[in-house]
């Protein structure tokens, strides 16, 4: 049998969108002194006959495992980019105030674009509102997230 493949295939260098999200999410936990802990769930999903990787950011209260909030979802294919964010409309209005119509899908083309988009999400009023609500559930009042 002929072997038509290369002898070896190497991992690609560079940060994956998932690892960038994990790092940014961890910072949110630190800023709330871990009263609200972000958890990134990941899995694969079938999207238009092809697989995509799915990363869902949950905001949780460590002392109350029953409380969790699905904040947004990030999707990409075997290519790291483009990345697609599924966010709620309120968040989208904050991220792209000039955008006309109702949208909840945000496309990001590169690592350079991903960092500021994640910063925009984590520093948004919507994130502050949700974190405040979760902190209130924790019995600490609505303190929001320290920026």
């Amino acid at each position, binding site marked *: *049998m*002929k*072997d*038509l*493949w*290369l*002898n*070896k*295939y*190497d*991992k*690609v260098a*560079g940060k*994956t969108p*998932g*690892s960038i999200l*994990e790092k940014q999410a961890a910072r949110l936990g630190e800023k709330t002194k871990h009263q609200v802990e972000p958890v*990134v769930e*990941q*899995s*694969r999903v079938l999207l238009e*006959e*092809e*697989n995509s*990787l799915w990363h869902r950011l949950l905001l949780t209260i460590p002392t109350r495992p029953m409380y969790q909030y699905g904040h947004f979802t990030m999707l990409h*294919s*075997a*290519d*790291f980019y483009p990345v697609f964010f599924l966010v709620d409309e309120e968040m989208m209005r904050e991220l792209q105030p000039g955008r006309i119509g109702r949208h909840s899908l945000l496309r990001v083309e590169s690592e350079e674009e991903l960092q500021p988009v994640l910063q925009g999400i984590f520093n948004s009023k919507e994130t502050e509102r949700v974190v405040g609500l979760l902190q209130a559930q924790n019995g600490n009042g609505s303190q929001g997230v320290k920026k």
Partner: protein
Amino acid sequence: MSDLQTNNNQRHPLTILREQASLLGSKTDNVVVAKVIEDDSYDPPKYDFYLIAIPLENFHHRLFSIQYEIPYPVFFDFRKEKKLEQEIEEKRGKWKWELPAYSEEEFESILYEIFHSERIKKVIGSLLTLSEEFVAEAGS
């Protein structure tokens, strides 16, 4: 693996494709493997060639599909992998609709170009990186 032979001793494209699929795992520590999946909703049937990342919950990435008339020509369809199509086109020139291979030799030559392409190196490399990260996070 049964080896389908054709009348003029050319090996059957499906046999060759399945053999090649069976070889990838040994080059990636079985993290990324290849598989041929038959789609019999077409006549003649279509055979889809997938890369599968085992640790990523069997994440499937379709590279190309083939259809053939017994046994040659074989027609390659890269509809789901435009970047791969572009790279092969740069080497072979543009084709109309689907890329044909009129013999076993030509079929193997196209497979060789696909498996040595920059695009395949990138896709397999990405799947290896993502798989490693996925396993590390699942274990943490």
